[in-house]
């Protein structure tokens, strides 16, 4: 089972520019979470802070009792072995073939025999659909292939926590859909805690158990997916609908005058009722996602605090699949 990640009061600035402040959330163990946000809101910075590559000025990130911000470097290095991080452009080693890239963590951290390494690596290469390309250098393959190779490398040590930085960027819609399914299947198989940073609405609507959104230097909200998908908060509603009308402008935020003018013209009205798309299920033949079962109990406990719309959406999502299992 995956590991819970507790983020507590995190604040990060570069020089005098504040990226986000006081971000607190808990990634429940084994569940899939998505962090949304317009471009440039520091989603990648958030990911790198969780894994300890960047050091926020305030706050803590607790994983198994290790604070990834302030603990000694040795403990952080040790804890990082629990992670798999998929970089935005793969971040493969340019001088090594794909096979060596994917074998790198195994060779560094385990004493496995070369035949054993070969078996594991080829298995992962097969999962991400790169069989036949293992001898190529990263410079010789397309961006989408590099991304998938990056994912294979992140998976090779059987991580407890998987972080994905924009898994969809540079992929076509079909590959994105396959990747979404792959992530859910992985979660069903290894039950790892996953955090996906993206601004792809399809992934956001179908993959996660939980969703959060960063906007304007703050964590707008974080909670079960239904809460965001039915949210009436203008920023969230605008983002999930992909509309121009709302607080998000071309630059990070709109100025008050434009926003006021929009409201006078009634631009924000055309929202309509929002439907919640059902979450992806693991492919046939995969084990049952333990995280989904755990989440059901967790959400049932907090049902009272959720908004009405989210409650109905959650209840609706239970009816078709599980007969009689309603809380």
């Amino acid at each position, binding site marked *: 089972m995956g590991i819970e990640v507790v983020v507590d009061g995190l604040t990060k600035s570069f020089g005098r520019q504040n990226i986000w402040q006081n971000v607190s959330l808990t990634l429940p163990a084994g569940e899939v979470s998505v962090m949304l946000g317009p471009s440039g809101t520091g989603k990648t910075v958030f990911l790198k802070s969780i894994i300890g590559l960047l050091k926020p000025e305030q706050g803590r990130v607790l994983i198994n009792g290790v604070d990834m911000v302030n603990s000694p470097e040795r403990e952080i290095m040790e804890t990082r*072995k629990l992670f798999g991080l998929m*970089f935005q452009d793969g971040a493969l080693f340019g001088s090594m073939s794909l096979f060596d890239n994917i074998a790198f963590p195994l060779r560094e951290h385990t004493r496995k025999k070369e035949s054993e390494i070969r078996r594991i690596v080829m298995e992962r290469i097969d999962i991400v659909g790169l069989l036949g390309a293992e001898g190529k250098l990263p410079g010789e393959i397309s961006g989408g292939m590099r991304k998938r190779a990056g994912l294979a490398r992140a998976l090779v040590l059987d991580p407890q926590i998987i972080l994905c930085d924009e898994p969809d960027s540079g992929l076509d819609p079909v590959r994105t859909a396959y990747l979404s399914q792959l992530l859910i299947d992985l979660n069903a198989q290894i039950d790892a805690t996953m955090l996906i940073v993206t601004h792809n609405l399809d992934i956001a609507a179908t993959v996660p158990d939980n969703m959060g959104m960063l906007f304007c*230097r703050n964590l707008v909200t974080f909670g079960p997916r239904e809460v965001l998908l039915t949210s009436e908060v203008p920023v969230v509603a605008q983002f999930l609908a992909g509309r121009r009308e709302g607080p998000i402008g071309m630059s990070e935020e709109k100025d008050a005058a434009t926003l006021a003018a929009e409201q006078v013209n009634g631009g924000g009205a055309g929202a309509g009722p929002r439907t919640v798309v059902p979450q992806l299920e693991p492919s046939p033949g995969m084990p049952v996602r333990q995280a989904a079962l755990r989440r059901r109990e967790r959400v049932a406990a*907090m049902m009272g605090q*959720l*908004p009405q719309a989210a409650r109905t959406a959650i209840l609706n999502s239970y009816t078709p699949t599980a007969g009689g299992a309603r809380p």
Partner: protein
Amino acid sequence: MTVPPPVRPPEPSPGHVPDPPRPASASRLLAPLRETGKLFVLAAAVTRAIFRRPFQLREFIEQFWFIASVTILPAALVSIPFGAVIALQVGSLTEQLGAQSFTGGASVLAVIQQASPLIVALLIAGAGGSAICADLGSRKIREELDAMEVMGVSPVQRLVVPRVLATMLVAVLLNGLVSVVGTLGGYFFNVIMQDGTPGAYLASFSALAQLPDLYISEFKALIFGFIAGIVAAYRGLNPRGGPKGVGDAVNQSVVITFMLLFFVNMVLTAIYLQIVPAKGS
């Protein structure tokens, strides 16, 4: 779980708040000190990581071979004329002073103690250090080093330590080569071109030179190799923004190494002359 979110977070106002005037001059004055401090931190980290298992033997051998292969030929080719120049210069000077018989000792000492370690260091910094810096720098901007760190592998231990050890070992070995070739060059020019006598040349050599001269020469080469490796790694690990930043970093690493070399050489020479008595005194 869901914090009631403000529609518009209250704190940041639209547009940019003018930055309050800050004593920027103080931080700018301190910037070189901060860089120096970071350089020493890296040097300390590398020294510590040298003794940490597992040792990256393969990487070390590859780097050693690479640095040796790009420096051996230029070093030999540079050291012949360098030894010759010193021999000619010293030869004509001692002739004016009427001390031709000491030409051999003087020119050999100059070659072994000063010229040879410096030639080695300049070549290693110029040929090996620039390659190390460019390599690490481009890995850094392509996020390869981040990826390595994320996988729980320290880039200092995995990449920097083998490179620094390689520059040190190549420097020591190359210093031997340059000393021999330079001395032979000096001998050739002095004996053949300036009609010096071979016997006097060799006799003055053993009269003036002593074994510690060779030790300090090798010690200098070791230190210079360390400096070249550390500075190249430091600039490579901290390039400023994009491919051009890597180019600048390479440039700076060579310049910084050169300046450090000559300064450290002065200090080492001064200390050596103080603590090791000259032969015969």
